Each structure stands twice: as C-alpha cells, then as structure tokens.
C-alpha cells in the first residue's frame, strides 16, 4: 500500500510527506511499554518551545521510532493549534 503518492501533490512544507511519515511510525514502531520514551515535559517542549531544547542530544531521535511518543506529539500539537500558537498543523 502506498502511503505517499507524489511530491507533486505536496506543499512547500512537505506536509503530506511528514503526515505519511507519522502514520508510518505509528504503524511500524509500537512501544506499549514506553521503552526509551521522552518524558512529557520534553515532548511538550519539543512542540511548544523547541528552540529552548538541546536538540543535538540523540535522545530526541527516539521520536522517529516510537508510535507512543509520536501520538503524544500529535496530541500536544493539536492542543497548541487550538490554543492559537505556532506551527503549520499536525
């Protein structure tokens, strides 16, 4: 099944690509025991004030391989959007 059809249908922010990547990670990297997960404050920081975090720390890369952290990020971004803050959407 194709998750992503063509770059031609995407916008300048590659929104569809990142949406497809998010779905892929949620499907392929379940982590029900939350092994190696970032704590809630760090995830909130990543969504609300990422410039204040040291994103060079490799622990943040965990989100690329964790369905649970990805889901939490999605919830936090929705909260951010509903609060009228920064960002391009979820």
């Amino acid at each position, binding site marked *: 099944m194709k998750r992503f059809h063509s770059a031609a249908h995407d916008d300048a922010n590659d929104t569809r690509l990142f949406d497809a990547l998010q779905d892929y990670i949620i499907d*392929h990297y379940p982590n029900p025991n939350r092994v190696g997960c970032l704590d809630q404050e760090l995830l909130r920081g990543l969504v609300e004030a*990422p410039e204040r975090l040291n994103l*060079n720390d*490799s622990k*943040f890369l965990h989100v*690329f391989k964790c369905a649970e952290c990805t889901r939490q990020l999605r919830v936090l971004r929705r909260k951010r959007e509903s609060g009228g803050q920064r*960002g391009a959407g979820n």
Partner: protein
Amino acid sequence: MTSPSASDLCWVIGVTPQEIVPTVCAAVGMEIEKARETAKIHLGDEQLAWEMMELAIQRTTDHLACLATVNVEETRVILMRFYRNEVRRRRRASRKLIYHGSSMDMERLSSPCHHSYACVEAELDLEALLNGAPDELRRAMLLRYGSRSQWSEVAEVLSKSKEATRKLCERELKRIRKKLET
C-alpha cells in the same frame, strides 16, 4: 565451520567507496564478537551473526556514503545500531511464528503486501539514519517532524535561508519519500 573475518564480510558486501573500507572493516572486527554473542543470546544461533552483520554492513555503508567524514568509533555505533535492529526484527518475526503460527499468520507473513512492508521497515529507520548525521540536519528534522515547524521557522532557528534549510534535509526527504512511495 570457519568463521569469516571482518575483511571477508566487507569483501562479500563489496563495500564502496574504497576510502571507507578500512574504517568499516575495523568497526566490524571490533564488534563481531559482541555480534555473535548477541545472536546466540537472542536468537539461539550465533551463525546468524554473519548474515545479520552483512545486512548491517550494507546499511552502514549506505549511511556512511551520505557523510563527509567518518571515524571508527562512529562507524561502530552505526553498525551495531543496524545490527541490533536486525536482531530485533528477527526476534519479532520468530515470536510470531512460534506463538501465533496459525495458517492465517503464515498467509499474512508470506503475502506480497506484508513482505513489502517488511522491506520498508528494514530500511526506514530514521533514528539510526540521523544518529550519525550533522547536528543541523538532526535539529531540522526534529523541528519539522516533532514540532511541525514550517521550513521558514526551522530556517530561523538554524540561522539559514529557507531554501538552504530544505536543501540540508533533501537527502533524508528523498529517502523517506522513496520508501513511502514503495
């Protein structure tokens, strides 16, 4: 059976470019014992180590081809990350076969659709891919994926132009696109 050496494994894979061969061979040589133990403990067969190490070498080589410079320590980290991922996948597959080995499971496991997912999964490991990447690239991808900052916002954080920022991530974007289009 005689165990292949690190250079045998690199030769079998045909590691290129040539400049990285000594680094990759050195990393393999330092990690091969640990790899054998891991295979024995987690999969019950240390002979599987060679096959899994070949895959890890191939993925490491692809990964290193994207980097300007590499050293043995970084290569060891990347190599073993790919190796552990392979062990994990095999354990997961093995668990399915042992505990859920009904005919339906077998059908799912052998279907072309499932097979293609497995291939994608085997290759789209951004955590591993970005682990040895330049800091700016990692930050940009985290900002875009985690925070969903727009490229213009990412550019501001990195003090670059929007175009330069997207260009910085282009190789990873292409890689993701290619895998998700499969």
